[in-house]
């Protein structure tokens, strides 16, 4: 999902995770109106990783246990390996990690809940290039493994690297939805102008 800042991309993700509720209209997940679902259960089915890493006070283990209190050391190490961190991280102070490490712990934390979909809100905007690559690979890997990822970015190169389907959001409206490959030719003028403008900067 791409669009200018302030266009409503984050709001759309927050609606999907039910951190916000729509003033009008309906958000559905697999056919069910979100308003009719238990929000706590829904949030575990639709996981979310935020723009800035949000490590909680305590060790990495304790961070993972917020998602699953009964998580043992073996499962914790597995969760960390899933995001490319060694099991040795479990005893590290989560607040002492680098931005990229912290963001990966946040993703691991979300994956502990075994979400059916993962929402990624500009998760690479505050991490270094190597962590960006790692997170992109993790996102692509999740999608390949059958867990759809709704990835918000303002980086069009990143969109081209990752996206199978693209949503373009401008002024709170989805102005284009379709395959990534045909975007430059098939998209309406407003979308192409936005893409051209972004690429120029």
């Amino acid at each position, binding site marked *: 999902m791409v669009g200018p800042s302030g266009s409503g991309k984050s709001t759309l993700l927050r609606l999907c*995770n*039910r*951190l*916000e*509720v729509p003033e009008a209209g309906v958000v559905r997940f697999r056919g069910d109106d979100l308003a009719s679902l238990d*929000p*706590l*259960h829904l*949030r*575990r089915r639709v*996981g*979310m990783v*935020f723009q*800035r890493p*949000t490590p*909680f*006070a305590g060790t990495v283990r304790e961070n993972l246990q*917020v*998602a699953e209190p009964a998580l043992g050391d073996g499962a914790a190490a597995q969760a960390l390996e899933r995001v490319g961190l060694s099991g040795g991280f479990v005893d590290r102070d989560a607040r002492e990690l680098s931005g990229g490490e912290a963001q990966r712990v*946040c993703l691991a*934390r*979300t994956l502990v*809940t075994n979400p059916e979909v993962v929402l990624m809100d500009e998760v690479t905007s505050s991490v270094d290039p190597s962590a960006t690559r790692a997170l992109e690979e993790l996102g692509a890997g999740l999608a390949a493994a059958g867990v759809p990822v709704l990835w918000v970015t303002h980086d069009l190169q990143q969109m081209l690297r990752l996206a199978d389907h693209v949503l373009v959001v401008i002024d709170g409206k989805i102005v284009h939805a379709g395959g990534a490959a045909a975007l430059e030719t098939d998209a309406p003028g407003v979308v192409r102008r936005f893409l051209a403008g972004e690429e120029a900067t």
Partner: protein
Amino acid sequence: MTDIGFVGLAITGLLVLVAIALSLWRQLGLEGTIAWAAVRAAAQLLAVGGVLTVLLDPAVSILWSWLWVVAMIVFAAVTVRRRAPEVPQVFSLALTAFGIASLVTLGVLFGLGVFELDARTLIPLAGLMIGNSMTATVLVARRLYDELRDKRDEVEARLALGQPSTEAARPYVRNALRTALTPQIETTKAVGLVFLPGAMTGLILAGVDPFDAVLVQIAVMYVVLGSAATTTTVVGIGVQRRLFTRDHRLLPTPSPKRQE
């Protein structure tokens, strides 16, 4: 017994003049405020003294004293609302908190027979309890609001993991309660070493045996500890409930406009 009379009071007024003179000399610009504060304190306390004189008359029903206690609770809640206006419905919350703290502390003091229940004991004890819990109550309301506002990212990340709002808020409620109660605990530890507290000083000045005065003071400190812990906990839980929706979303927390 000590009776300074109006002449004695007028003489201590010289010390207010000292404060005003110092303000003038150092150009603090506080002369007016100091004079107003001194006059206002005298007027308020004289009025209270007048009311107490009536209430303490054995012929007057103790119901009037209870009414006075209720008035103090309402006034305390108004003060909390004035100092933490950003917290939704903080008035009713503070009212509940002081009400529960009054039940608990006065229940122990009078229910278990520590003091004999009459106007002479009820009004000062309730006043001490409410007055000394007020700062901690304001502090916990503000602090928790600030914590949840400043750490919204973290709180929402917890919610996004499926934590219920009570659990997502728990670390921040704990921080706020600790922050609000710590000054009271420190005061309790330092008492006697650093300063002689008001109740005891007053009793000694009034001619009560110092040892008896100390016993009363210790009891008062325990009362204040218990009531501050009660009011802050009630307000802490209440603020948390008011800042989250039933479906576990954190409500908007605009930056507060506060008067100190």
